[in-house]
């Protein structure tokens, strides 16, 4: 119980009134005074343990040490960020190449159109310049004459790419006029 009071008094944690009362009882009670002196002795012994001589060079060199460490950290940071940047760029290039490769191989329209153009060209050369297209896949079911000029359009038509009626009519008109020219009528 006394120890709590000693600690509080020593720690200056008593109110003014409590402090006065404690001091009065200290003066009146010899045993209490002895116990308190003993407590203060222990406190002083404890503080004595902290009075130590040290090598001052350690503290004198501290700012230099800190600056060296900081510059090392900066270098490390630069190396790390360069490495991260490089690896990121490599990854980006890698993904772009994969994307390009996929988009080329997935683009199937182009080869089919090209194939159709080729086959139409072959037909043209076999049967002369004028061929009636009887392609059953044709939605228009219209006989169309193929000239080199319209080979590409026919090829597109074969692949179910929509052409307007006007376009088709135009083709037929042109084909007929060519036929007339050819027959000399």
């Amino acid at each position: 119980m006394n120890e709590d009071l000693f600690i509080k008094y020593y720690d200056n944690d008593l109110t003014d009134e409590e402090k006065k009362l404690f001091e009065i009882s200290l003066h009146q009670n010899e045993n209490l005074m002895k116990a308190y002196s003993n407590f203060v002795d222990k406190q002083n012994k404890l503080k004595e343990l902290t009075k130590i001589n040290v090598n001052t060079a350690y503290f004198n060199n501290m700012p230099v040490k800190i600056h060296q460490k900081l510059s090392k950290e900066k270098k490390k940071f630069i190396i790390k960020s360069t490495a991260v940047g490089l690896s990121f760029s490599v990854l980006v290039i890698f993904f772009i190449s994969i994307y390009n490769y996929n988009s080329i191989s997935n683009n199937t329209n182009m080869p089919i159109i090209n194939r159709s153009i080729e086959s139409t060209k072959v037909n043209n050369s076999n049967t002369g310049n004028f061929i009636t297209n009887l392609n059953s896949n044709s939605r228009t079911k219209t006989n169309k004459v193929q000239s080199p000029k319209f080979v590409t359009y026919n090829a597109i038509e074969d692949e179910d790419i929509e052409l307007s009626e006007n376009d088709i009519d135009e083709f037929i008109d042109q084909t007929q006029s060519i036929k007339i020219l050819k027959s000399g009528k």
Partner: protein
Amino acid sequence: MIENLNDFELVQLFINEKNEQAFNLIVKRYQENIYWHCRRMLGNHIDADEVTQEVLITIYKKLHTFKYESKLGTWIYTITSNLVLNYIRRKKIKSFLGFDDLTQDIKDNTDIIQDLDDKLKLEKLNNILKTLPEKQRQIFILRNFDELSYEEISQITNTSVGALKASYHHAQKKIMELMKNE
């Protein structure tokens, strides 16, 4: 003269003008307090040195976040206390996982205390402080050796003054009990 500037002026000089001299002066003013707080908390020079350097580097990097609402010393003690407690936690995890460092032999040779009597004194103090749990040890050291007020310790540890007093008195009682045998 830069030496005559107070802490706040030094901080401003460092932040606004990147004056390294100002930072060096802050280091000189506080390095011993930081080191001894770490040393008493950790019990050896190697660990104390590591954490002291960590604290000073953190101060260098974070000084621009200092808000001038408390003393610079209180702000520095807050960083120190947090880093010390983190270090103790890391060490506990390492030792739990079996990654204990084998630097015990180096510890004695690199110590900044060369006098044998002083070494014995410090060993005695360490043995006493070791008996306290970390949080209680921290409060006891801040109050008893660093001589900070309860209000300052309250800011540093983010604990109420009442709880601090209770914890400090508890620690005092334990230590007085241990000192009986001395």
